[in-house]
């Protein structure tokens, strides 16, 4: 039921965009820009990414006429941003560099004995549900702070997969990474967030 409503909402929005309705553009910009920025930031620095996303929206005004709905609107927009960002990279003759080596975060790796058992196991069980925890402003600020320190490649992978709920193969296409490298990026980013949340829960400090 929810999916049907969601689909028809998206169809209405697409119709509005095709007819050049300004209110629908405002709605779409608000909903889809965070994900588009996550894509652009994978490839580009922040100010170039912002420019690329702005340019994309201007392109979308005409390009939406050719949107046939073979993918969802979100995936279509993310692919446009990815292509534009890759063009920027090519012009600047730069490449994305990501570390796909060790999958265990060094801080977590230090918590095991040489025999592979826990030396410093997790001491607390996080049992409060995520929605009520997010009402804690300090935790939300701390998450922002730690997300900002993640390498762009890890942060974009995390945002597209978790926050914008793309399927793995969509994320791989948009970010031009193999499935196994995506797994590495996700796991490394999640461990960092896990370590941050654990410290926050234990000490109340970021």
């Amino acid at each position, binding site marked *: 039921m929810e999916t049907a409503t969601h689909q028809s909402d998206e169809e209405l929005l697409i119709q509005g965009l095709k007819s*050049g309705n*300004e209110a629908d553009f405002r709605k779409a910009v*608000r909903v889809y820009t965070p994900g588009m920025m996550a894509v652009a930031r994978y490839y580009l620095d922040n100010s170039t990414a912002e420019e690329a996303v702005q340019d994309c929206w201007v392109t979308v005004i005409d390009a939406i006429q050719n949107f046939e709905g073979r993918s969802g609107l979100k995936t279509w927009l993310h692919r446009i941003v990815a292509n534009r960002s890759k063009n920027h990279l090519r012009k600047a003759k730069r490449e994305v560099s990501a570390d796909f080596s060790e999958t*265990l975060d060094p801080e977590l790796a230090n918590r095991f004995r040489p*025999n592979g058992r826990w030396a410093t196991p997790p001491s607390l069980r*996080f049992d409060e549900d995520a929605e009520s925890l997010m009402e804690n402003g300090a935790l939300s600020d701390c998450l922002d702070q730690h997300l900002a320190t993640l390498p762009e490649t890890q942060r974009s992978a995390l945002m597209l997969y978790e926050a914008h709920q793309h399927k793995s193969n969509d994320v791989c296409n948009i970010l031009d990474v193999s499935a196994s490298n995506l797994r590495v990026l996700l796991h490394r980013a999640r461990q960092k967030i896990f370590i941050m949340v654990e410290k926050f829960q234990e000490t109340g400090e970021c």
Partner: protein
Amino acid sequence: MLMCRDLARIASDYIDGELGPMDTVSVKMHLLMCGHCRTFIGNLRHSVDLMKAHSSQHVDEELVRRIDERVTESLNARNSDNGKSY
């Protein structure tokens, strides 16, 4: 035999259901015997939920405002061009 450190290395794949059947069985067997790893997996899952709840709230208002302005400008320019052509 799967050790705690090995489990930590593949924990994300396990919670996303991306492990092969043999590895999945090894993880489940290990979790039956190891309370620390059960807590670790539970907390890692919880951190992922927290990320989802957090990130869906975040919008850069200043960027959205700038994009709205550019889109409005372009829509107006397009409408006036269309007007001229008739």
